[in-house]
C-alpha cells in the first residue's frame, strides 16, 4: 500500500509520547515497586533528575503492576499542579478530577474524599483485587499538611479492606525542601508511612544500556506488520543487515564527552530519544549510514536541548 505523507509522520519517532523504550532503569523501578507492594509497604518516594523519564516509566509500569498471584493491581495517577493555595481539599479535588469522579464546585473535603474512596472500591470489586496503587507525580508541589490527605485515604481504604500504596514522584532538586521538612519530628507520622522507601531513577548510564535502547529501534515495528523503526527510515541499509545498535559505542562515546564536560549524571531519556530520533529520521535517512560520524551525533545532541538545560542547572 502506498504510504501517504500523513502515514509517514504518524511514526512514533515523530511522536515521543508514543515511543516506549524499555530500559534497565525501568526494570529496576518495576522490581522495586513490586517489592513495596508485595511487602505491604504503605508508600515510597521516587526521585530523579528532570526529564530523566520517571513519569513515562511509571505510566508504562502502572498497567503492569501485579500481585504475587498475577492479578493486575488497579493503579491511579495524579499529577499535583502548582497552585497559590495549597489545601487538603485541593488535593482531593485534584484526585477526583484526575479520576473523572463526578463532584460539585461546593463539595467539601470529606465528600471528595469519600467519593474517591468509592471510586477505588468500585474498581477493586470489578477487578477482584483488594490492592491499589496511587502515583502522585510532581509531589514537590505539595505542602506537608497536604500529605495528610493521602494518609486519610489510606486509613479509609483500610476500613473497607483495600490496601493502598502511595508512590510519590518528584524531581531531585525541587523535592529536597519538602523532604527535609518531612524529616522533622512533627511529621513523623507521614514520614513513617510514606517516605521510608525510596528509589532514585536514572537515565542511561553506560554503553550497554545505550545499545539495549538502540537495539529496540532494530526490533520494534511500525506499523505492526511493517518494517522496523530502522528499516522504516533506512530501508536499503536494513535490507543489507545494517543495524542502528551498531552505532551504540560511537553514540555513547560522544555523550561521554558532554557528560564529563557538564557533569551530567545520566543521559535522560527525553534527551536520548530526541537525539536518536533526529539522528535516524533526519541525518541518516537523508545522508545515508556511510556518512555517519561524530559530528552527526554532536549535532543531534545539540538539537535535543541537553546542553542548554543542563548548563543552566550547573550554574
Amino acid at each position, binding site marked *: 500500500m502506498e504510504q501517504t505523507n500523513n502515514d509517514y509522520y504518524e511514526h512514533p519517532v515523530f511522536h515521543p509520547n508514543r515511543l516506549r523504550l524499555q530500559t534497565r532503569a525501568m526494570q529496576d523501578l518495576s522490581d522495586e515497586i513490586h517489592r513495596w507492594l508485595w511487602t505491604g509497604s504503605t508508600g515510597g518516594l521516587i526521585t530523579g533528575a528532570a526529564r530523566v523519564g520517571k513519569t513515562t516509566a511509571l505510566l508504562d509500569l502502572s498497567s503492569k503492576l501485579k500481585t504475587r498471584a498475577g492479578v493486575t493491581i488497579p493503579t491511579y495517577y495524579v499529577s499535583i499542579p502548582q497552585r497559590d493555595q495549597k489545601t487538603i481539599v485541593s488535593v482531593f479535588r485534584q484526585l477526583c478530577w*484526575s479520576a473523572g*469522579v463526578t463532584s460539585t464546585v461546593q463539595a467539601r473535603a470529606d465528600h471528595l474524599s469519600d*467519593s474517591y474512596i468509592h471510586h477505588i472500591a468500585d474498581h477493586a470489586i*470489578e477487578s477482584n483485587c483488594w490492592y491499589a496503587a496511587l502515583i502522585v507525580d510532581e509531589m514537590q508541589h505539595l505542602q506537608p499538611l497536604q500529605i495528610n490527605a493521602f494518609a486519610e485515604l489510606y486509613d479509609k481504604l483500610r476500613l473497607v479492606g483495600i490496601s493502598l500504596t502511595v508512590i510519590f514522584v518528584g524531581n531531585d532538586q525541587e523535592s529536597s525542601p519538602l523532604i527535609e521538612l518531612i524529616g522533622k519530628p512533627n511529621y513523623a507520622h507521614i514520614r513513617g508511612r510514606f517516605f521510608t522507601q525510596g528509589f532514585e531513577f536514572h537515565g542511561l548510564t553506560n554503553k550497554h544500556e545505550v545499545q539495549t535502547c538502540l537495539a529496540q529501534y532494530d526490533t520494534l515495528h511500525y506499523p505492526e506488520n511493517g518494517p522496523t523503526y530502522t528499516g522504516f527510515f533506512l530501508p536499503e541499509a536494513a535490507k543489507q543487515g545494517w543495524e542502528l545498535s551498531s552505532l551504540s559505542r560511537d553514540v555513547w562515546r560522544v555523550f561521554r564527552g558532554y557528560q564529563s564536560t557538564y557533569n551530567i549524571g545520566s543521559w535522560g531519556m527525553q534527551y536520548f530519544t530526541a537525539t536518536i530520533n533526529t539522528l535516524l529520521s533526519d541525518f541518516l535517512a537523508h545522508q545515508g549510514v556511510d556518512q555517519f560520524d561524530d559530528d552527526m551525533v554532536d549535532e543531534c545532541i545539540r538539537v535535543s536541548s541537553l546542553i542548554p538545560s543542563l548548563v543552566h542547572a550547573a550554574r
Partner: protein
Amino acid sequence: MYSSIKSHSVASTCGQVNPTNLNLGRLLERPYESAYAVLRRLLSANPGVSFGKVEIILRNMVPHCASTQERLMALPSAFHERVYFSREYLHDSYRRQCSSCALELYHSDIYALSWMECCPLHHCEFTTVCPQCGEPWPDLSNIAKRNCPACGPVSLRQITDVVLPTVRKQDYQPIITLYALVRQANADTHIIIRDPDDCDFNWRISHQKVDVSLKHFASLQARRQKQLTSAQLASLGAYVSEVHVRHAELKPAIGNFLLTDMQYFRLPARILTLDEMTAEDERQRRDDFEIMQRINRWIARHAPGRHVVHIDTYRYLDLNYFVWAPTACPYCLAVSVWFFHVAIKRLGYDIAQIIDNYPFFTQGGLDKLINTCDPEVLVDNLRYYVDDAFASWFYRRGLEVMFLDIIRFTFAMIDSIDGEKQAGKQCYVEPFANRAFDAMLYAVEIEDSHMNYYYTTESPLEEFRPPRLAGGSSLCRTYQLYHKAAKHNRPFKPVGRISRGRFDLDDFLTLTECFFESIQGK
C-alpha cells in the same frame, strides 16, 4: 455498553476528564436489589451529588433505557438478573420496606408483593414509614433530600462502621430462593387463570401470564415445583396456604363444538326426565342436585331458627320493591336465584338469558351471574374436553362458587336496603363484583394430554361465614307471610319449599317441574 462508565487502567484516568463518571457504590451491592436500593447506594457513593445530576449522568451512561428505574437496573452488577415485575411494582415497591434492611441500604422489589408477610432476612414486619425519622419512605426523587441513616444516603463512616460489617455477615439466600420461585413462574407458558366474566356461557381455560401478585402465588408455585415445603415457605416470610391439585386427561373436542352450540337453540316442550337425557346432561343434573343438597345443609347450619327454604320467583321485582316490603330473607333469595339459574339452562340459552334478567340484579349492580359447565381447554387454539371425573368436579365446584357470589350479593344488597329504609330514600346499591371466584386461586398447567388443576379452597361454601341477620329467625317468616297476604300487579309465584332435613333427588326433580310450570304460567 459499559466501557464509557469506567476503566481501571491509568491511561483512562490520566489526562482524561470524564465528568459523567459515577461511583456505583459496589461495596454495598447485594443480590436482587430494587432500583430504590441501587439509587440509595449510588447517592451514598457520590456524596454531594444531587439526584438531578445523577439522572443526567445516567441518561448518558445508559441511553437506551426510558426511565430512571430502568437505567438503575441496567447498571453493571455482579448480581443483576432481570425478573419480570409489572411496572406497578417497580414504581411503588419502595413504599413497603423492612426497617432492618433499610439500615443496611437494602431493599428488594419482592417486598412489595402481597404474599410477602415479613422480611425473609430479618423476619420483621414491613413498614410504610421510616422508623428512624417517622416519615413515609421516600420515592426515588426524594432520597437525596433525607438526612436519615435509614432512608437517605449514608456517609462512608456509617458504611464502614455499621453497614459493611452487617452486610458481610448477612446471608441473602432467602432472597435468591424467592426470586427463583418467581422466575420459574414467569418462564412457564402454561400457567393459566380463568376469568369467568369473559365468557357468557362457557368456562374456558386458556393461556394467560401468571400474576405474581396473587395472594396464593408462593404456595401455588411451591406446590407445583415441589421444591419448598410449607414450613420453608413460611420461613421465607411468604403467605402460606394449602394448595390442592386435581388431574385430568384431555380429549380433543373436534366435531363436538357445533353440536354443543346447536342445543341451545332448541325449545323443548318440557323438561326431560333423567332417562331421556344424554349421559352428560344426566351427570350435570345429578351434580345440580348434590350441590343443592349441600347448600341446604349449609343454610340449615347458618340460618337463624328453624329456617325453611322457600323457592320463589323474584323475576319481576325491582329494587324499590325490596325497600317498601319487609326485608327479604337472603337465604331464600339466594337459593331461589341460584336454583332458577341452574334449572333454566335446560331450556336453552335464549330462554335462560330472558329468565336471568332480574331487574333488581341490574339495579343492585350485579352485572351477570357466573355460569358453570364442563370446561373447555384451549391449548394453542386447539380445543379439548376433560375426563368425566374432572368435569363433574369442576361443574359442581362452579355451582358452589356461583351460590357464594349470589348469597354475598344478597347480604350486601339487603344491608344497603336496610340503611336506605331508615333514611327513607330511594334505593341505590353500590356496584357488586363477583369475587368468590377471584378469591380462590385457579391455576392450570398442561403437559401433553394431561392437565393439573391447582386450587386453594377444597370447599368454598364451608369456608364462608354469613353475617348475622338483623331480625333473626323471624325475618324469613315475616317476609313470607307478607307476600302471602299482599296484593300486587306482577305475578309472584312460589315454586316450592324445602323441608328441613329431607331433600332427595325426587324432591329436586319435582321442584324443577314446578319451576317449569311456573315460568309457563301454569
